[in-house]
């Protein structure tokens, strides 16, 4: 009994701020829903949030289909969250998951459709590799630039997101457009699709995502590379004095992060979408940031956070149909969660917490490197 209480206390210490941040976010979003309801044709409705949230919940967990939809939506978020979280561990803020996702999805679609007739074991595996490679290459660019020149990844990755949308649209229009369709798209992936394990759509990518979370945890906690990534993230200068090479580690961390982002796109392509067409939206990009912050960039925390945001994405359409509360309310909730996590002082005040764990300390490195203070390229002389 006493041991049980000890365990509960430890869980509360880690999870209290994320959980309370989510609760506060839902409360504030409810205010937004109520106030904005006054401007619609149906008029002011004080109880609209209750209806909206219960259909959100019903859409996400209310049926077998709902639960598999939640898990399917969570899979790319696990990879995306791990991508952002790994970046945080290394003192980098990868806002480029949206772009890496698209590149990964595109590469997987090309290889997948080329191998549409091959056995699944070959086609799906090679397509996944292509997606991983594409994402890694797309992550290497900002990582290398940050390491060599100090160009901050927050701006370069966002610019690469925008460039990726345009350049991939061009590629589908002019380079790899599949014949026989009325709109520009890539060919069918056929056998390269990920096998469905359960029900209508629960694909192989989901157990793969869970396994990857444990693999990333092992990489960070049990390997030399992981140790170096974390040291550079905590303090690049100290890492340099200890004989590590922050420049190499920065490029490597961003490449690995991009790789995870690319796999997120690849499994979504091979497990859900099936072909690449311009206009594929990647809400995964922003969602991944919220997931990583909510999971405190810890791989296991990210698993839980990804399932939560997967539930939001899976439940939102039903909410919009039943209560006409726009699905964009999920983005608002997401921003609020980030707000209350970043300003955890507010959460501590509101709930009078003292013992809860502090936020992600590596963020300091991210922000300092903006002004050239503690970046990997700092102190190299020019």
């Amino acid at each position, binding site marked *: 009994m006493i041991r049980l209480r000890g365990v509960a206390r430890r869980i509360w210490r880690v999870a209290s701020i994320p959980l309370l941040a989510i609760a506060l976010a839902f409360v504030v979003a409810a205010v937004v829903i109520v106030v904005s309801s006054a401007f619609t044709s149906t008029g002011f409705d004080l109880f609209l949030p209750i209806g909206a949230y219960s259909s959100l919940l019903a859409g996400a967990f209310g049926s077998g289909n709902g639960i598999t939809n939640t898990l399917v939506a969570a899979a790319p978020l696990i990879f995306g969250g791990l991508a952002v979280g790994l970046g945080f561990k290394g003192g980098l803020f990868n806002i480029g998951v949206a772009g890496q996702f698209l590149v990964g999805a595109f590469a997987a679609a090309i290889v997948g459709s080329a191998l549409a007739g091959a056995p699944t074991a070959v086609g799906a595996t090679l397509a996944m590799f292509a997606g991983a490679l594409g994402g890694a290459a797309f992550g290497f660019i900002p990582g290398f630039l940050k390491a060599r*020149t100090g160009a901050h990844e927050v701006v370069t990755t966002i*610019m690469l997101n*925008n460039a990726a949308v345009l350049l991939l649209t061009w590629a589908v229009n002019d380079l790899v457009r599949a014949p026989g369709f009325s709109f520009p798209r890539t060919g069918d992936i056929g056998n390269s699709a990920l096998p469905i394990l359960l029900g209508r759509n629960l694909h192989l990518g989901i157990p793969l995502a869970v396994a990857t979370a444990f693999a990333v945890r092992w990489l960070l906690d049990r390997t030399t590379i992981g140790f170096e990534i974390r040291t550079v993230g905590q303090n690049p200068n100290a890492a340099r004095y200890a004989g590590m090479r922050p420049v190499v580690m920065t490029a490597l961390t961003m490449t690995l992060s991009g790789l995870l982002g690319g796999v997120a796109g690849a499994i979504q392509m091979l497990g859900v979408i099936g072909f690449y067409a311009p206009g594929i939206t990647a809400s995964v990009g922003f969602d991944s940031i919220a997931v990583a912050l909510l999971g405190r960039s810890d791989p296991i925390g990210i698993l839980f956070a990804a399932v939560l945001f997967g539930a939001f994405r899976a439940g939102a359409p039903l909410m919009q149909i039943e209560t006409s509360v726009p699905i964009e*309310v999920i983005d608002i909730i997401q921003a609020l969660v980030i707000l209350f996590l970043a300003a955890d002082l507010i959460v501590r005040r509101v709930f009078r917490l003292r013992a809860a764990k502090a936020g992600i300390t590596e963020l300091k490195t*991210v*922000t300092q490197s*903006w002004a050239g203070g503690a970046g990997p390229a700092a102190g190299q002389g020019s």
Partner: protein
Amino acid sequence: MDAVGTFFRLVWELGVYLFVVLPDLLPIILALATPLALGALCGVVCERSGVVNIGIEGIMLMAAFFGYLTGFALHDTVGSGQSLALGVVVAVAVGGLLGLLHSWLTVSVRADQIIAGTMMNIAAFGMTGYLNRLIITPSGRGGAGIFTPFHLSGTIAGVPLVGPVFAMFVDQGPIAMSVIVIVIALQLALFRTRWGLRTRAVGEHPKAADTVGIDVVRQRYLNVVFGCALAGLAGAFLTLESTGSFQNGMTGGRGFIALAAMIFGRWTPVGAFGGALLFGTATALGVVVNVRVPEGDLGTLMKSIPTFWYAALPYLMTIVILAGVVGRSTPPAADGVPYVKEGKA
């Protein structure tokens, strides 16, 4: 040898082409540069006081939306001119309010500044998308209209050299027209006034500023609110002067390109304006090349580059500029560092 010859001929032809099209392009360039310049000025004002603001994109988007909503709602009740003017006022006020939120988060709560900015961007994207779907889409009414741009008479615009440059700044709507005034005023204010000195002191060495009696917290609040009001003006430009409508995510990364322009301009208003003009020129060339195709080999070459590459040009340029410039320019020393008064943990 032959390849080198061809290269130089192409460069020469590009020069001639620019010389021919540039006079007509100047007003378009300034119009494209306006939101970037205002956003970059927001960055300068914030960062000179030591607060990193990567939420410019989101603030622009929110201001663009609420400015548009105001113009849209009042279009039929008050005259078109008044509704647009009120829209600008609302947009600037929304910018200022979001600036107040950002300064509260970064200065008082001491939240991480980059995460606070990210939160702003996501919140703006969600909030505007939400309200757009809830209010504007179902109403099915027309837009808010746009400011009618001023037109210079042909005789003045026709004067060689001076005419086109004059037209660049005058053949504009009110917001684009005022940009140059704001840039010069801010340049003078930052380096010639008490406000500017205090701003720079707080951004370079807040502790020293504090010891001589400058209120660091107050100064940072003031600057972030004022800077974000400028970003609000940039948002108003997008909906009320440039496009006349609102689309989700219509800022399209301009807030981040503005940051690159700020860094390119080494945290000075005039330099940031120069950076914004550079981006404006690149974007304008991408557009004009399809309308007025250059002659000869250059034309064949430029036509062979797909439109999507021209559209991606500003983004790719931002990356190149950051990689090339950032290491060689020095940001304010206390940029991004929250100030904690001694004895107050």
